[in-house]
């Protein structure tokens, strides 16, 4: 900073909360203004008031569909953690395993996930499983990568300290390596959770009977644009809630991490 006097807008905590709100309201206002000024038909671009009233017409239905998508997302995400973290740990432990599995992981990750969606339906039907697996597939890679990186970042002197205390390998893992990797694991989780929402919507586009992705697809077929907008809004709210849930969890679990890194 070259100027010595910093504005209230950059320093005050109140402004830190207020500015995003102002930005959001401004964007919505612009959106509304655009529909009015250019006289856009509401089946092309509904105004914010149309979207709100669509939601208020059937709140129970839309919230139920949101819940369905949310559960699929969270289930797939948790499954990706349960599978991804141990695999990352094994990869870091063994060079042989790393060489054996890593290219395979890269290949799987390189496949556009939407290409697999119809196959998942063939294999697993129309229930929630193909959605959960799709979420798992998109989340898995960032979680594995960040965990592996975190596990490799343990400082040498801390490893030596535990050796000098005659710690067992298991103690070294749980008391040091895993704990030290936590901030990086969380970085991976935050990337993964946003992808998870995308994954569940993709899966719901193909062969679903419920969920917000299904709602969007149906509304597209019947040109009910404001319903699609309502569903998209709910999706993004869900995504933001999940993301900030993780951020909150990180603050609670790792109060040391913000200061040390």
């Amino acid at each position, binding site marked *: 900073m070259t100027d010595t006097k910093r504005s209230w807008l950059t320093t005050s905590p109140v402004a830190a909360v207020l500015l995003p709100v102002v930005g959001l309201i401004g964007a919505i206002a612009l959106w509304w203004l655009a529909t009015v000024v250019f006289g856009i038909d509401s089946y092309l671009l509904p105004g914010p008031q149309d979207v709100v009233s669509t939601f208020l017409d059937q709140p129970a239905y839309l919230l139920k569909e949101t819940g369905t998508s949310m559960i699929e997302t969270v289930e797939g995400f948790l499954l990706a953690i349960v599978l991804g973290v141990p695999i990352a740990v094994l990869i870091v432990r063994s060079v042989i395993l790393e060489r054996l599995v890593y290219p395979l992981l890269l290949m799987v990750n390189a496949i556009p996930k939407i290409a697999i969606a119809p196959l998942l339906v063939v294999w697993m039907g129309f229930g929630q499983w193909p959605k959960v697996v799709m979420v798992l597939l998109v989340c898995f890679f960032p979680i594995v990568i960040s965990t592996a990186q975190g596990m490799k970042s343990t400082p040498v002197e801390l490893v030596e300290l535990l050796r000098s*205390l*005659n710690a067992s390998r298991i103690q070294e893992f749980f*008391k040091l390596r895993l704990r030290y990797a936590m901030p990086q694991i969380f970085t991976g989780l935050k990337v993964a959770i946003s992808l998870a929402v995308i994954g569940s919507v993709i899966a719901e586009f193909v062969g679903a009977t419920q969920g917000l992705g299904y709602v969007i697809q149906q509304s597209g077929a019947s040109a009910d644009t404001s319903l699609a907008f309502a569903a998209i809004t709910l999706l993004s709210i869900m995504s933001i809630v999940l993301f900030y849930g993780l951020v909150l969890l990180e603050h609670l679990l790792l109060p*040391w991490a913000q*200061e040390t890194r």
Partner: protein
Amino acid sequence: MIRLDGVGQVFDGREGQVTALEEIDLHVRPGEFVTLIGRSGCGKSTLLRLIAGLLPPTYGEVRVADEPVTRPRRDVSFMFQRPALLPWRSVLSNVMLPVEIEGDKGRAAYRDRAHELLELVGLKGFEGRLPHELSGGMQQRVSLCRSLIRDPQVMLMDEPFSALDALTRTELSGELQRIKMELSTTIVFVTHSIEEAVVLADRVVVLTPRPGRVREVVDIDIPRPRSLGRNAHLTEVAEISGLLHGLLAEKEARPVDEVRP
């Protein structure tokens, strides 16, 4: 207390083998304070790690308390150049780490001891703080308490004060001498500061680099307590420092066949 007989250490480097230590004979008496001094790359840290059981010698034998060292011993503590504190653990919990790793034997008694040690180094009231909330000097004090928690017979210290500012360094070397006088622990202390070596030691071992050999062992008979800062024995310290400086600055080190016991 510590005995090294014909110890050598050879590492496999990128360009063939590197001899880090050659023909080291050293005998440290119980309760003695020995400093190891030498240029960087003379193998002082390697020597310390051999005594700690963190590294097996390529040849020769290392004995502590008349037993060959095969792995880290519980009555030998190691203190590093950096504080090596676990960032998510409070001060108290860091000090308790060695006890925790060993198992739960007499946890309560050790807890009292931990409080006592923290008070001894002036950290009373900081037990619940996280490492990042402390200054470098305070962190190294915590590290000192941790290395004292199991009442070690031998303390191995690898340039523990070298990352601190001059004033803190003076304070800590004073505290270390005070603790040493109370506990009669055997200490082997690596440093590259001539003055520090002289002020702390009963004997100074001068190592020459490539390969690391014992160049000379100098007895220090200056009465204690001594201080790095204001000093009642400035002339003696200066005299011996000068001698050591000469030894360290020699280009061609003459091989030493015999080391004074």
